[in-house]
């Protein structure tokens, strides 16, 4: 199983005032991400590993690496579970 992730490029989405809104038409679902999650979503336009995302998050927000890694893993687990993010 790949350790790199990317967003599912088949899903409609738009950034509304800096927050990503993702649509899952097959399930009639809408998902709205907060600022940090929207930042990670933007990073996932290309395949990224957990360390890639942690480094990007630490570069953008004032957050310790350990906390950032925990946040990134939670984010990926949640969005992969919802089918919004896939293994690259």
């Amino acid at each position, binding site marked *: 199983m790949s350790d790199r992730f990317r967003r599912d490029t*088949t*899903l*409609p*989405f*738009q*950034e*509304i*005032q800096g927050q990503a*809104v993702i*649509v899952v*038409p*097959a399930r*009639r*679902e*809408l*998902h*709205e991400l907060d600022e940090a999650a929207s930042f990670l979503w933007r990073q996932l336009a290309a395949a990224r590993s957990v360390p890639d995302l942690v480094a990007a998050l630490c570069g953008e927000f004032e957050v310790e690496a350990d906390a950032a890694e925990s946040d990134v893993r939670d984010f990926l687990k949640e969005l992969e579970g919802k089918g919004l993010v896939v293994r690259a």
Partner: protein
Amino acid sequence: MSDCSILDGLNARAYEHCIPLNVTLELTLRCNIRCTHCYNFDRDQPRPASGPELSLDEIRPLMDDLRRAGTLFLTLTGGEAMAHPRFWEICDEAASRGFALSVLTNGTLLTDAACERLARIPGLWGVSVSVYGAVASTHDGVTQVAGSFERTMSGSRRLRARGVRTALKFIVMKLNAAEVGAMIAMADAEGFEYAVDPSITGRYDGTSGSLDTRVDAAALEDLYKGPLSGFVGPMRPENPGDDDFKCNCARGNAAVSSTGEVYPCIATPLRAGSVREQPFGEIWGTSPVFRRIRGLRIADFKTCAPCGLKRWCRRSPGPAYLLTGDYTGVDPWTCAEAALLKQLASK
């Protein structure tokens, strides 16, 4: 947060911050049926002269512009959108840009192959199919094309069977008013989502023959006492504020006609600019027409402002504009409907 509340929240933000979240793109005025109530033009007459339709080469940068402006939900309509010779390419272009795509159609072109192809479009949010009766003779009487009911309904069933969200849109008029209950029962029995709309507008070409198809006051009362009784209710608070009275036109909604004219919505052909002259984003941000609409207050709706029916009124600017040429004008049919709704709700 539920998906409905996310969508409501998005529309509220689009309204507040004027983000064109929902855009309708009219691909063509061509159509393969000849509905008596069509708002495009009188289909018993030759098609009025107009500029050439937007080409695919014009639609691509328009879509890019819409993305930059904040559009998420893109609806393709016509005429008959599926009759456009580049329909599938346009769908693919929309999907590749990340739009949640909807298609409004008369359903007659929903063949097996078309349904299969629609079902494969990533990002297809749904298809809305116009239906004008519960039986073929009624529906075909409206479309003036024999066999259209069978094609529309069988196409709708095929599409839904492939997992595409397929909603029936019932337009209520004199010819089918007695069948509205049966139309709803048909949708319920087959598990279709549906919407019911008794409002008919004048036409883009300035003719008003479509209005002859509207139900009269007596028929409307029968409908709201009968099959549409569930729709009787207030539209807004007792004393609505400016934002309670206005709709999302030119704030969260916009439309682009088949020749590139930009409107506040597809039902209100009030020209704000042309994407052939200016990018959509510029028109959206600078058009005096849009600025005026955004700045309207209840007091600017001279007839509506003092009216005691505002709470019950289902006013849409389209019919009023097409009837009076004034965005803030009044369609008396809508006033009669509001009076009826108030009367029925008080019983």
